[in-house]
């Protein structure tokens, strides 16, 4: 398992240089709340045909900065992005709230109590 | 195609596969996960079963004189058996029987009485702790 640190501004170029549709399988986008308004974001990939070969792109951010979307490169990422917009209240371009939550549900349930 | 037609014709004369429960009783297998049963004499009131239960189906009430009362809700229980595994005396005080639980009726009070009992137990615990703390302070001030 390999963890690579990246930043929000260089994310699109890093994944563009790394991703090859025939070799890597995109798993999901994950967010972990670290308290005090900070969030850790992870993009997880695994290799086809190899044993336990997982690559994670890791970065830390806060809730105000907009997160770049990788849908133009990996078309199936829109489901995971809609989920973290619902659960954490992040801002991603071209994605809006409404996958799991209704108009009168709680706002961003997985954000820690602040 | 002909084979499927022949199979469909034979099915007219085969016996019915479903069991008409509750007119006819069904046979439960050996080791079926049934109700949890309790014996008050052997219990040492260590509270391990209450802490380990995932949905909170066993709740103890703390009487002010010092003894505890056990109550179990068979309609919240998931019959996992964790309480039996955590008990220090698993076959004498608490064990897993093979009786099937029945459906709940309105007079069992599953939705109202059980939640009142849970709130009363929590309040009784806090009252007991507060009474003990104040008794300790009083004893210290006497010395």
């Amino acid at each position, binding site marked *: 398992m390999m963890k690579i640190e990246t930043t929000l501004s260089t994310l699109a170029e890093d994944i563009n240089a790394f991703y090859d549709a025939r070799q890597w399988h995109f798993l999901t986008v994950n967010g972990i709340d670290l308290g005090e308004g900070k969030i850790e974001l992870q993009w997880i990939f695994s290799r086809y045909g190899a044993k336990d070969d997982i690559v994670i792109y890791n970065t830390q951010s806060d809730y105000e900065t907009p997160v770049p979307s990788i849908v133009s490169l990996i078309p199936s990422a829109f489901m995971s992005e809609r989920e973290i917009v619902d659960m954490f209240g992040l801002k991603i371009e071209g994605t809006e709230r409404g996958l799991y939550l209704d108009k009168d549900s709680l706002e961003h349930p997985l954000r820690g109590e602040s | 195609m002909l084979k499927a037609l022949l199979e469909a014709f034979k099915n007219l004369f085969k016996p019915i596969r479903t069991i008409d429960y509750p007119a006819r009783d069904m046979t439960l297998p*050996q080791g079926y996960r049934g109700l949890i049963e309790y014996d008050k004499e052997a219990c040492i009131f260590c509270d391990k079963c209450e802490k380990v239960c995932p949905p909170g189906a066993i709740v103890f009430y703390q009487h002010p004189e010092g003894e505890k009362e056990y109550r179990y809700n068979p309609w919240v229980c998931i019959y996992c058996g964790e309480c039996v595994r955590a008990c220090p005396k698993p076959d004498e005080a608490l064990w897993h029987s093979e009786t099937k639980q029945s459906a709940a009726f309105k007079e069992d009070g599953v939705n109202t009485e059980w939640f009142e009992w849970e709130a009363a137990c929590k309040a009784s615990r806090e009252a007991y702790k507060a009474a003990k703390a104040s008794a300790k302070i009083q004893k210290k001030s006497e010395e």
Partner: protein
Amino acid sequence: MKKTVHIPLGSQHISLLEPIRFKFECENEKIVGVDADVGFVHRGVELACTRNFEFKQVGYVVARVCGLCAITHSLSYTLAAEKLLGYEANDRIKYLRMLMVELDRIHSHMLCLAHTAENAGFEALFMQIMGDRELIMDVQEAISGNRVQFDFIAIGGVNRDLTPELADLIRHNLTALSEKIDALMVLFEGNWSLSLKYKGVGVLSLEEAYIYNALGPLARATGLATDVRAETNDFPYEAIGYKMILESGGDIHARNFVRLREIVNSIDMCRNIADNLPAGEIQEKTKGKPKGEALVRVEAPRGELFYLVRGNGGNMLERVRIKTPTFSGIPAMMEVFKGSEYADAPAILASFDPCMSCTAK
């Protein structure tokens, strides 16, 4: 002037088993655009695992995310927690866990085949397959005490053991089942009315499977060789005779055959386990609290299931992230609908085997 019509395959439909809503944009019965709405059954399981339950009880909570793949959820969480506690199970525990996972795979695939046959109009075959599935449900009830939610796996081992009478019951029922599966394979291949509904309908090509990250039997029916049982070191699958099943063609007929051949392979694996189970303890005590981060992937009947668990040394966990197979398969499913007729949509949807309670946790 071209005009498109919006037709819903709504959340209430006579052929639908799961609560999902599609909005199709159709030109004269041919589908050109798809919009999907999942999330009717969202219950907030990820939040409950970190607020209301301690780490020893989370295995029972997480098993109730789905009914058909309950044991794979509970197994993945338990493996992740054992990795954080630094504990490795002995051989007998590993083989017993694999036995229950393979039995679960057999009954889930039979349910999907029955539902696909029903949507093609052959309701008698649906009843027959469900009746034959009772052979496996009897075995599961005898081993674990319940037909659907097993509660069989705990941190440190399994809860019940396998006696010689149970091993005899397993062998007897599996022999009876394998004759019926052989008869089913002849029927699905040769019956004329079923082949009109299945061959050449709902095609996903290999290129599209790579682009949209398809997984599970949906990907293996197009020729993409991906299966977590061959890509992980946690379980000794090669030792009991696992083979990867691939077909080419990508239509509904190929998916049915991937599932049928996987059932045959699973029957062989279960028989191997029942004959050669190593000796040992079934439950061992573990000490400590979970600290750090662990990732686990397990092959559920519908694809790849992924768990990420993070703890900080206390009784409550910090983050439990669940990624279910149907959730990742929705983009590929939406792609298959484009270009087919509207009347084929229920049969195509049943052949995907969607599980909505997994998707909207």
